[in-house]
């Protein structure tokens, strides 16, 4: 399979690989996918008082397109409010990376990861309040 230049770039130079302290009430963690399906994404966000995502980190088990999709979304969501981040669509990710149809699920997984991280953050905030 031929990969697009953008996929190769994110695969070879992934942005924001790593982790944030999952116990921090300001950090939301999303873990989506399944090992049996061949891809798992962990996306973490750190949200400040104004509801802005000030940091994002990821780790991904998966093919090049899955790694690129998660790397890309960490770039996109940094500096966005959680409301705006939640509006990112898998189609935008797929289009930006020129994913072929057989790889569309990678972009869907990245969208799911953002939502899961935001949900986790909101849940923690409720408990804290």
């Amino acid at each position, binding site marked *: *399979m031929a*990969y697009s230049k953008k996929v*190769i770039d994110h*695969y070879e130079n*992934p942005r924001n*690989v790593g*982790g944030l302290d999952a116990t921090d009430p300001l950090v939301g963690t999303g*873990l*989506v*996918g*399944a*090992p*049996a*399906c*061949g*891809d*798992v*994404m*962990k996306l973490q966000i750190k949200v400040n008082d104004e509801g802005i995502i000030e940091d994002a980190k990821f*780790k*991904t*088990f*998966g*093919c*090049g397109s*899955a*790694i690129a999709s998660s790397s890309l979304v960490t770039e996109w969501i940094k500096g966005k409010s959680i409301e705006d981040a939640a509006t990112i669509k898998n189609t935008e990710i797929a289009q930006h990376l020129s994913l072929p149809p*057989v790889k569309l*699920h990678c972009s*869907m*997984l990245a969208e*799911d990861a953002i939502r899961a991280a935001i949900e986790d953050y909101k849940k923690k905030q409720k408990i804290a309040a």
Partner: protein
Amino acid sequence: MRNRPIYLDYQATTPCDKRVVERMLPYFTEDFGNPHSRSHAYGWSAEEAVEAARSQVASIINADEKAVIFTSGATESNNLALKGVAHFYKDQKNHIITCATEHKCLLDSCRRLEQEGFKVTYLPVQPNGLIDLEDLKAAITDKTVLVSIMAVNNEIGVIQPLAEIGKICRNAGVFFHTDAAQAVGKIPIDVEAMNIDLLSISAHKIYGPKGIGALYVRRKPRVRLLSLISGGGQERGMRSGTLSPALCVGFGEACVLAQKEMASEALRLKALQKRFYEEITKELDEVYLNGDLDQRIPGNLNLSFAHVEGEGLMMGVKELAVSSGSACTSESLEPSYVLRALGVEEEMAHTSIRIGFGRFTTEEEMDFAREKLVKEVKRLREMSPLWEMSREGIDLKSIQWAAH
């Protein structure tokens, strides 16, 4: 090498040996005759070349040359063996036994026969990839016409116990077919000693040209089959169509070379295999070999690198031409059915890489490949949430994963 990746996919195909190509060339130009033309010297000369090639192919499996039928390749040979025998004997017997890890072309032929009303038993394999002979004995009934078990598996390179299977089949009065596409030229095959009744070969797996193969069909005791292709009745009526003398000659020469060089080549490849496997398991934790190590051809390693997805890994080792059992490399998105049949967990099947090496692979290339893989596996593990969790002692099976 024109900046191309190192070729480590010898189970997919092999480069044609230059000595083979040289022998083939005259048969495209000067010696272009139709081997079935009986009325002039062009035909006679082509026929002579084809028959010499037939005996060279027969020799590598210790067969009677009259029992060797040229086909377009092992896929056709497997189709002809399965469907041909099943159809010929369908009034007396309707049961076939094969195994879960066979090549797609064989399994697909079986499915077709099932649709026609034949019964097929798919034997499971043990975790090392080999069938249990007791399972085979138990599966044979008085309705069984054919047992078809591959000699060497194309993904994991394991060698089935052919002589034992042959003995069981002969004693039970059941024909034994083996798909030997990955075995011929790699390990000694003897249709007499192993009681093999039908055997499929492919030329391009043994440094011969693509587009030709053979089916051995035993004459004593005679195996009969219904042909798939109607026509002029060439190849003893079992496979009509004009033969290509150039392809036949190339196939024959490939067999001659393989027979002559098999022993020394096997020793050399065994050493490469051992070095690669021992070193990579020293340099990386959690590397698992799929399939038996000892009952295995020397030119194959199939390794699972835990917590690193296979296609992602292949993208990182673009200097190497390898293949993966990962779902992502197939249109179906299902991981390798061969690995699944071994009982390899789906997750581990996704992390597998097949390294196939052969006649033209050097030690330097194998060392380079290993270093490249080690480096990339380490990089991707640093990026893998599963690797992180397993390092933290989290049991990945205890997590409720959302399937998608």
